[in-house]
């Protein structure tokens, strides 16, 4: 049995390793093509990863990437493509900020209230796409893309001074939240503070694994993703499953902006990070929808983000990191599919070979059993 377990680990690691190697090589080629040293930028970025203040930045950034990628991944696990994580987390962060400005409860109630606001906002927004899909057959891809754009418009509206907006210089903000809703950071001394909600990200990762792998609901969800027809025949109500998965995905997405909102900015303004939802798609892909894989991928992405500004000081363009992210996503898609097919075929061959050799589970009279089926 051990052989097949080792096999699975090999397959799980082969995809990302190949993808990363290809991406590094291609990035180096891009550098050579533009007449630059193909090695030094990477050396500089690796060096950055050694500094503790950069490490804190990386962890903080990764926590948001991680939550966004989990939101994408839970959709992927059942073949739903929630492209709308971006709109969902921004709208959710905005609503949480507004509630945080206008409500002032004790911290033990305030923080859960803000989390709940974000979850419900995100779930509501993705739920629209879910309802459209199950009632009208609208592709969730199209619906969520549209909803992203609508979210931007809604946020713009909410920012108006006579709605919930507060102008600070040229910046649109929601005003500063009451400090009962602030989540204290974890002090790392001179290196800075790690967001308190990094812990939330870790808990969500654990919860994601437990729900998917250890609950009936998770099994139904994975079955729906693996084969819609087989899941339906097994008793999963496909429509309800689509809606549930969309709601969970959106609810998770709603939390993606909160580490920075509750841990640092305390207001939703024009400076609030955007695009985390889209990056989450690439990170979920690279992480193969597994909570551990996504953690590595989120850290990798955050590293590329936070280590690349240093390049500007050495005559390189920091956009190399963006190129690299793009190349990783491209190679990931290709290499995973190739590795998956290769692995499947390899296993079929091995099973054939093992059966031919008479290694049949539970057969005490191996020698007399023949291999009938093939």
């Amino acid at each position: 049995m051990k052989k097949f377990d080792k096999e699975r680990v090999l397959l799980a690691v082969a995809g990302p390793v190949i993808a990363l190697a290809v991406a590094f090589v291609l990035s180096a080629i891009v550098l050579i093509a533009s007449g630059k040293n193909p090695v030094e930028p990477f050396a500089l970025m690796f060096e950055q990863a050694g500094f503790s203040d950069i490490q804190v930045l990386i962890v903080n950034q990764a926590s948001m990437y991680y939550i966004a990628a989990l939101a994408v991944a839970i959709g992927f696990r059942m073949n739903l493509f929630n492209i709308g994580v971006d709109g969902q987390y921004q709208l959710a962060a905005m609503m949480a900020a507004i509630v945080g400005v206008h409500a002032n409860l004790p911290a033990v109630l305030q923080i859960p209230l803000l989390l709940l606001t974000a979850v419900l906002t995100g779930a509501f927004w993705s739920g629209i796409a879910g309802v459209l899909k199950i009632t009208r057959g609208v592709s969730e891809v199209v619906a969520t893309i549209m909803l992203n754009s609508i979210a931007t418009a809604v946020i713009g509206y909410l920012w108006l001074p006579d709605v919930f907006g507060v102008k600070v210089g040229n910046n649109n903000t929601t005003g500063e939240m009451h400090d009962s809703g602030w989540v204290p950071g974890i002090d790392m001394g001179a290196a800075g503070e790690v967001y308190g909600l990094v812990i939330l990200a870790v808990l969500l990762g654990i919860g994601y694994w437990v729900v998917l792998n250890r609950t009936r609901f998770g099994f139904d969800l994975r079955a729906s993703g693996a084969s819609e027809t087989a899941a339906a025949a097994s008793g999963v109500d496909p429509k309800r499953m689509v809606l549930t998965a969309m709601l969970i995905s959106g609810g998770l997405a709603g939390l993606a902006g909160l580490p920075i909102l509750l841990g640092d900015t305390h207001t939703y303004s024009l400076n609030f990070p955007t695009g985390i939802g889209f990056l989450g798609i690439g990170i979920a892909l690279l992480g193969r929808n597994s909570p551990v894989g996504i953690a590595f991928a989120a850290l990798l992405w955050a590293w590329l983000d936070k280590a690349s500004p240093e390049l500007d000081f050495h005559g390189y363009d920091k956009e190399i990191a963006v190129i690299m992210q793009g190349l990783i996503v491209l190679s990931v898609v290709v290499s995973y599919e190739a590795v998956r097919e290769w692995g499947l075929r390899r296993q079929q061959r091995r099973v054939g070979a093992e059966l031919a050799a008479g290694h049949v589970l539970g057969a005490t009279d191996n020698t007399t059993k023949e291999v009938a089926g093939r």
Partner: protein
Amino acid sequence: MTAVELAGITKRFPGVVANHDIHLTVRKGTVHALVGENGAGKSTLMKILYGMQKPDEGTIAIDGEQVSFSSPADAIARGIGMVHQHFMLADNLTVLENVVLGSEKLYGIGGRARRKIKEISERYGLDVRPDLLVEELGVAARQRVEILKVLYRGARTLILDEPTAVLVPQEVDALFANLRELKSEGLSVIFISHKLGEVLSVADDITVIRRGTTVGTAVPSRTTPRQLAEMMVGSELPTPETAESTVTDRPVLTVEKLRLAAPGGKALLDDVSFTIHAGEVLGIAGVEGNGQTELVDALIGLRHADSGTIRLADEEITAWSTRKRREQGVGYIPEDRHRHGLLLEAPLWENRILGHVTERPNAKGVWLNPKAAQEDTRRIVETYDVRTPGIDVTAASLSGGNQQKLIVGREMSHRPRFLIAAHPTRGVDVGAQAAIWDHIREARREGLAVLLISADLDELIGLSDTLRVIYDGRLVADADPAAITPEELGSAMTGAATGHLEHEENDEPGEDEAR
């Protein structure tokens, strides 16, 4: 004079030898049957002859001349044509368009092509009309179009892959008449089948393949089906016959006036009523596409009836969800196990959970219990003789027969009261087939009610206690399996006979006209 000679053909796929030292000699102007059970290597051999795969060893000679094919185009150029089991026709094009598609250079696409088609059709008695839309044609007519397509491209040797699998007995006879025309014109036919009666009636020579190699040849006039079967499986052929009746008077499943309509309003199922008692196997015979799939969907709850009721024992289950039905004792062996019965890329133990995720031992409350599920998977693998090196391999790595045994084991493990068995032994080797029949029989003895749908009439007649015939969404006829022949059943399947079918000792049934 030999048309085709294959000598010493060996084809290895990594880890598996699909063909080993195969010899096959097809004489000109004959029908040569290639028989063997599923998975014996017939398809691989024909793919080699048709240029879809290259042999690792061995030689192919056409008309005495050694050749090497690297694509089907090469094979076609040497006069080899293949009629696939699954038709490759475009429904929304006419017969003419289908035939010329891809061979426009031969006779153009207009009058010349039409004349050629008519000429071929008349010469071989194929009765193909070039201007009909393919979607208007029945299965048998489509098959004749496929044959004509191959002849149009100049084939002198035709490979027919399981051509009778989709035909009712009367259509089979008509096909065999066509084949005799072909050979009287000097063409050769390689006929792949595992139906022994047919093989013996149509073939001039027989080559038997077992476990990837040729185990012998036979002359039909001097061979009995039993001898042939023993060559094929290397042992005695199992029979589906059930010994004694176990039918009780306790109804388990009662369906009344079930109706299911397509979105356009056309009835897919209409006025379907039947009762299955504990210990009874009800067989549904019918040409595929007459409502069997819809009936199964309605019973398992994938589609909900437009009107009518379904009762399980004393409870009306018409409005129940699929999950509730399964929890309450409806077992399901689906027609298409890859689409409805398995998660191909998931390990066997997860496939053991599929369909029973809410039940013990798979779950405790809302939590999965992987340990217990794995333990139980091991038990199923051993009890139901699923040949696998372990329970962590993916379902896709098992052969069809072993996949099916896993499904049967899974469904039986939950002690169903009512089992839907749709084509339970389709694409399954003989050994697994016998095992599956045994399991169904055993469960029936313990009071299981079974709905059996099958295209294999011998299986239907042998296993069923009661037979009903479905035609165009209605149950049009019933028959006593102890007294009916496949031919009589086949005639009812074409809609020609209704009511209670009586076996007629001397005469052929009057309605017996091949369409």
